[in-house]
């Protein structure tokens, strides 16, 4: 096996490890640190794919991803936490142990459903596809099971990282423009959510989603 494929595997492994760590930790600040790590791993995946297919544009994408996912977005989330200390704990709906066991099931599920795709095209990138899929599912799990709006943002970012990874691995990279378009949408979304949570906090004194149910009318 080539050196590059091994590096790709390693980056994919790190990518998955970061997702698990985000699920594992309760402290949102620690989660953002892992999110940065994941952004770096994602950028590494893009760069390795670029080197493999000799596509310089992917280097650009990698740089963009690194800037945005590893630095900008986590910093935004961290700023949002800095304002209020009590939101640091992610307050999961089901206990962390159970959600970790659920993640075991999800990863195995991702692995099972990705098998036909892997068989279709047996490249190192395709074989790493279940990793991306797993991260998407774990992101969704966090979105579903976490109570605080901030940890929902983390879950959202995780989900998007997963989708991006799937895009890289399955289609060997998306056009530069599309990637940046998506990324800026994401940035916008995070900013909006941040502003919203800040305002909610000022109005209601907390961002517990269960307590927001009354806001629907």
């Amino acid at each position: 096996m080539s050196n590059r494929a091994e590096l790709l595997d390693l980056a994919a492994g790190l990518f998955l490890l970061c997702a698990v760590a985000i699920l594992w930790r309760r402290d949102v600040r620690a989660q953002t640190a892992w999110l940065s790590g994941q952004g770096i791993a994602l950028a590494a995946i893009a760069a390795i794919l670029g080197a493999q297919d000799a596509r310089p544009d992917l280097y650009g994408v990698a740089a963009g991803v690194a800037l945005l996912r590893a630095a900008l977005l986590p910093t935004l989330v961290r700023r949002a936490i800095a304002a209020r200390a009590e939101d640091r704990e992610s307050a999961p709906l089901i206990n962390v142990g159970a959600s970790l066991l659920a993640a075991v099931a999800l990863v195995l599920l991702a692995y099972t459903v990705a098998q036909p795709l892997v068989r279709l095209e047996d490249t190192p990138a395709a074989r790493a596809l279940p990793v991306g899929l797993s991260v998407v599912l774990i992101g969704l799990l966090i979105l579903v099971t976490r109570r605080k709006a901030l940890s929902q943002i983390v879950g959202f970012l995780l989900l998007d990282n997963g989708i991006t990874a799937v895009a890289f691995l399955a289609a060997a990279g998306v056009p530069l423009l599309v990637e940046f378009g998506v990324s800026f949408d994401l940035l916008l979304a995070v900013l909006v959510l941040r502003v919203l949570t800040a305002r909610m906090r000022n109005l209601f004194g907390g961002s517990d989603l269960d307590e927001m149910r009354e806001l629907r009318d």
Partner: protein
Amino acid sequence: MSAPVLVSLAQVLLVLLGAPLLVGAMRRLRARMEGRTGGGVLQPWRDLLKLLRKAPLHPQGTGAAFRFAPLLGVACSGVAAAAIPLLSTRTGLGAGADLIAVVALLTLATAALALAGLDTATAFGGMGASREMTITALAEPAVLTAVCALAAKVGSTNLPAIVAATLSHGARPASPANLLAAVALAVVVLAETGRLPVDNPSTHLELTMVHEAMVLEYSGPDLAMVELGAAMRLTVLLGLWSALFAPWGITTTADPARLLLGLAAFAGKTLLLGCLIAAGEVFMAKVRLFRVPELLAGSFLLAVLAVSASFFLA
């Protein structure tokens, strides 16, 4: 005596003599980071020798379990030290050096000490035993699943075989399966050796104790054996971890010169890992007892991922 047997004996001797020094170095580093000077690397040995010279006591109402658990602890760690390829893959136990058997042997020592804690009939002894057994029970799935990930590729749970296979492929230790399994086992090693964030080895408050609470009743030579056993356990587990994930320096022969190199590598790696743990402990607080299962569930998840990753990645 054949060379592999000598290698094993050397490993046992090394762990026996070196374990207290490792603990001393870790305490020293921690003291320095806290602005103190600390007791020096040799202090644990001084403590041990003093304890051995003290008068042995027989606490009323304790029985054989209490009396023999410390010795069993040292014996189990010693046998593990003989089995794990710390210096060379040619250890004297050959096929007996099985990863599962070594893990089970260390569990046996834990169970014996827990029985000793219960045997004292004191509240603290029972409390420590209960907590220790809870943690051990929950750590087991992560260990064996990680073992599964490591063994699946080599096709054997034999330790020298696993280490030799890793050594023969230069870049193998960095595969994603190994990476995930390494993190999983690292958490387990922390839990099994009673380090932060699972247990605080330097606590004086009985209600927060896990391992310490079981041994409150020991004194003199018995306590020396308990402490020596704990130190050897730490060294052996760190050695096992480094043999599995950073096997550099371990020879596949019994050549004396290479063994010396292996010795230096072993000392360096173990010291580095020990110092990492000690330094980490300065920054960390103990987690609540009922969050420990979360920690171990995460470790189990990583181990399962390691197994899956060994299939879908590389």
